[in-house]
């Protein structure tokens, strides 16, 4: 038994063939975004802490690893998220480019802690940001593009859950609730515990406001069944305008989804959803697939740049680990052919031009067919012809084809 290297908690090696599958999936997602005009940018892995975690990024500060930069002697933070970096690029470096500005990225982020259900601390993210335009058409474009790109990957039944984390604060604006009560109310809303919401709110703000909040909790569900009821609720003006923003995005996204040929995308509404949307300022969304316990991605409206300056923006972040777990196993890749020494490098070159994966022998092999099988090749090039190789026995355990057979659960 070999002593294996232990990696830090939440860090993992990705092996063949999963690493190839992951890279191919990133390429397909980025190609999907590119087809809508989203151009790739590549921000660095770390930045000065005070800059990366300023403004809207402050919400992510508890998740950021820090280290000291020996050159500047200032603190650096490893990025816990890429959206804020792209917003910085848009508002500071590409500020003279015409708006709307469409940018995309693919990269790794690291978090100080995993979550209870997802222990990974390094996660791949693929995302797109649409900067310089307000709602609702920009929101609809990003939402339907993200859901559509996932559907095109082969993930069936994508559900988009729309939220408006600014609605409840608008409803409670100007009310003097003590901070502890506000925290307990937030927990009760997050748990969709309508009874607890009523119990907390009624003594302070009266039965009317309590009933209204409980009603909002209950109005979570498919857009076609809850939106009408949500629109009929009697809300104060500030909250009503947040609701109008949500309804406008829902309607625009539904129309766009069916126009773009994605009628299977389900659109849901959740007016009190808040978790995971720390820096958002308008309509948000989370992407789900049936049978996958975690979100495939999330996004929404935020403010790009510093407060007072800056511009409206919306975007989406896809979580690569969850996306990969939701995908059907990859289609058969190019076939692998073993090219023994006697077939020569010219034959290998020709096969590669023809789309084969051609594995050249580095030393003469007594039995070319056996050697092809040992190396996990489906074919062998002998005497100018390509012949199939009988599949290897499942044993012995060091056979590299084992990885091919075991991949993708």
């Amino acid at each position, binding site marked *: 038994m070999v002593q294996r290297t232990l990696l830090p908690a939440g860090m993992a090696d990705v092996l063949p063939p999963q690493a190839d599958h992951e890279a191919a999936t990133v390429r397909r997602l980025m190609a999907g975004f590119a087809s809508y005009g989203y151009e790739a940018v590549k921000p660095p892995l770390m930045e000065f802490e005070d800059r990366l975690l300023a403004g809207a990024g402050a919400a992510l500060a508890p998740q950021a690893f820090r280290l000291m930069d020996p050159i500047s002697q200032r603190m650096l933070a490893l990025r816990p998220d890429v959206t804020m970096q792209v917003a910085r690029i848009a508002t500071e470096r590409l500020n003279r480019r015409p708006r709307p500005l469409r940018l995309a990225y693919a990269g790794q982020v690291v978090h100080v802690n995993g979550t209870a259900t997802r222990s990974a601390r390094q996660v791949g993210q693929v995302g797109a940001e649409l900067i310089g335009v307000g709602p609702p058409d920009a929101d609809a474009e990003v939402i339907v593009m993200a859901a559509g790109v996932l559907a095109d990957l082969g993930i069936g039944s994508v559900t988009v859950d729309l939220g408006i984390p600014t609605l409840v604060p608008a409803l409670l604006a100007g009310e003097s609730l003590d901070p502890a009560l506000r925290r307990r109310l937030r927990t009760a809303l997050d748990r969709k515990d309508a009874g607890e919401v009523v119990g907390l709110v009624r003594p302070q703000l009266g039965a009317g406001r309590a009933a209204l909040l409980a009603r909002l*909790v209950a109005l979570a569900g498919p857009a076609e069944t809850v939106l009408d009821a949500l629109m009929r609720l009697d809300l104060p003006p500030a909250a009503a305008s947040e609701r109008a923003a949500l309804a406008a995005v829902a309607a625009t996204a539904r129309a766009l989804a069916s126009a773009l040929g994605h009628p299977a995308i389900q659109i849901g509404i959740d007016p009190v959803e808040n978790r995971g949307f720390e820096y958002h300022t308008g309509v948000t969304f989370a992407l789900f697939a049936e049978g996958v316990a975690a979100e495939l991605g999330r996004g929404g409206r935020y403010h790009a740049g510093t407060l007072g300056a800056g511009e409206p923006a919306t975007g989406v972040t896809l979580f690569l680990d969850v996306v990969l777990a939701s995908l059907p196993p990859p289609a058969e890749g190019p076939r692998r052919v073993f090219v023994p020494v006697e077939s020569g490098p010219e034959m290998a070159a020709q096969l590669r031009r023809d789309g084969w994966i051609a594995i050249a022998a580095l030393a003469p092999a007594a039995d070319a067919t056996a050697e092809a099988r040992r190396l996990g090749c489906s074919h062998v090039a002998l005497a100018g012809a390509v012949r199939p190789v009988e599949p290897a026995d499942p044993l012995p355990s060091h056979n590299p084809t084992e990885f091919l057979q075991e991949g993708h659960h």
Partner: protein
Amino acid sequence: MAETTSIVLALPKGRILGELRPLLDQAGIRPEAAFDDPDSRQLRFRTDDPHLHLIRVRSFDVATFIAFGAADLGVVGSDVLMEFDYPEVYAPVDLNLGRCRMAVAEPAELVAEDDPESWSHVRVATKYPRVTTRHFAERGVQAECIRLSGAIELAPAMGLCQRLVDLVSSGATLKANGLTEVETIAHISARLAVNRTAWKTRPAPVSRWVERFREVTGAAEA
């Protein structure tokens, strides 16, 4: 959509299950016979609804099964929800079962001379280290938790620590062990809990079950 995939309801073993059994009847959930057979080792049960399955796990584990999506719905105490606080778990219905409170207790003789104002550090035996730490931290007291999974009331008498945090219903166990309840942390009851993704991706069957539990518990929705 997706009416065909079945719903898994996780139920806790032990104390609450007895109280819960009539509620299942009222909700129209009729499990197979093995469910009520105390000698059965079975942990998964069919019901007369082919799209509803039951599993029986430890009460602390119900929240975990739901958080990971291994169960879609479950019955779980609000004490467990407070301890784990999984963002993937919703708790929409108070089932009004298993009512009790989570409390701080200490030996009766300590109460007389104890001044909570002067605490800076306490050692506490509990099943709920996270709730306990948070509770004491809110008033600036460092709590060193000794995590036990049962017989918490024994800890002070055996010199493990002086204080404990546990569930109290009648207070008889505390009294029998010479302990006095000094502070209530929260009122506890069993909740119907729901996996977030299940609710989002299969709204029809999930919300139907939520509504049914809401009706039979008479929980007013507003």
